[in-house]
């Protein structure tokens, strides 16, 4: 049916009981129903990456998933990157390297990099650049975004616990 259904989204570890129609994208549900507006909409057809979040650890476009599909998944957004007042190293590197200007694309880039490094901390610098090409920045701060991401990659390489 096309009517609204009740679902619970688990975002940054917190459950949000919401009432959504099937056609509501995950991005819209996060912004409108969960009140998490850090996830931005830049194109709504999967090209710009501003709405990138992680779902079960994988960086995905939240405009290309429906909210009803995300029930039960571990959803992470930019609002969940920091630990209280403590910024994550990636967030800190973005500030220090000036990897943001207007800041509209920033949450998408952060989640893209966060998800990538958690999934594949062993990627090469070239692969990282290719992955960073998934998202658009118009200002454009690409050089500094790459610098911040490389620092985060180095950080991930040096701090990842060896597999047990």
């Amino acid at each position, binding site marked *: *049916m*096309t009517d609204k*259904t009740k679902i619970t989204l688990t975002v940054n570890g917190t459950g949000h009981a919401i009432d959504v*129609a*099937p*056609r509501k*994208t995950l991005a*819209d549900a996060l912004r409108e129903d969960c009140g998490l507006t850090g996830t931005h909409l830049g194109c*709504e*057809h*999967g090209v710009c*990456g501003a709405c*990138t979040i992680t779902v079960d650890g*994988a*960086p*995905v*476009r939240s*405009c*290309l*998933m*429906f909210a*009803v*599909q995300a029930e039960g998944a571990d959803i992470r957004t930019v609002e969940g990157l920091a630990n209280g007042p403590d910024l994550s190293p990636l967030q800190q590197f973005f500030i220090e390297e000036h990897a943001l200007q207007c800041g509209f694309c920033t949450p998408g880039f952060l989640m*893209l990099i966060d*998800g*990538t490094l958690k999934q*594949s901390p062993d990627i090469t610098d070239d*692969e990282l650049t*290719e*992955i960073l*090409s*998934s998202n658009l920045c118009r200002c454009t701060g690409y050089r500094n975004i790459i610098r911040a991401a490389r620092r985060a990659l180095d950080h991930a390489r040096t701090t990842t616990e060896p597999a047990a």
Partner: protein
Amino acid sequence: MKPAPFAYYRPTSLEDAAARLAEGVDDGAMILAGGQSLVPMMALRVAYPSELIDLNVLPDLGTPFIDGTALVVPALTRHASFHKADPAFGVTGRMMAEVVRHIAHYPIRQRGTFCGSLAHADPSSEWALTANVLGAELELLSTRGTRRVPIADWCDGAMSTTREPDEILVATHLPLLSETTRTGFCEISRRAGDFALGMALVAIEVQGDTITAARVGLGGIEDAPRRIAEAEAELIGQPATPDTFAKAADAAMAVVEAMGDATTPPEYRRDLAGTVIRRALAQAIA
């Protein structure tokens, strides 16, 4: 930019999905797999299904596996599953790990599926090209039973396949390459991550200096990917040299019916076909 209203159905099994599809297809019900092509089309109002039957809720459709001499890719295998070559898949796995890096962007590859790509049938689908080079068989399920379609009979034009509207592409069977096969892939796009202007995937066997078997596939050039027999004929029995590769490329350029678009004339795609074939072959023997 909001999709039209639709109903959402969580099937309990593939058979249940097929039954639901049979019931609703005339009204516009569709299968939802990765959704990375379908959802943007819905946002752009190019597609407006009455109902989406979401395969994502079904278990055990995500992991590819070996069945005899074939690699079986079930309906929900994401592109990202091939990022790291599974040693069990041998040369075929390594080739697919090279190809997959060229598919869209990393976040899209986390959701998009192999079978979805074949069902969507974009002329520049890397997986459709791969399926052609490997000689895939596609397994389709409907309430009428299952059937298998050879890849050569799959696409009947750009974005169009011989799938019946009530059929679900439940798996693709990819015959494994022999372990002595050498492969090469070359893709050209205007900008990193864009749809390809053209690509070639080759698989050859070389004994001594002589090419003993050859498959040459082209994608993004014509309205559907395919193997180019004329190019393959120029290779077999010949030395694996740049001269031979150039002859194969010329043979392909002579027969392809290249597409044009607003910014890319067909002549360019034809020239590009030759270049990607030469480069893919050079990569295969490197």
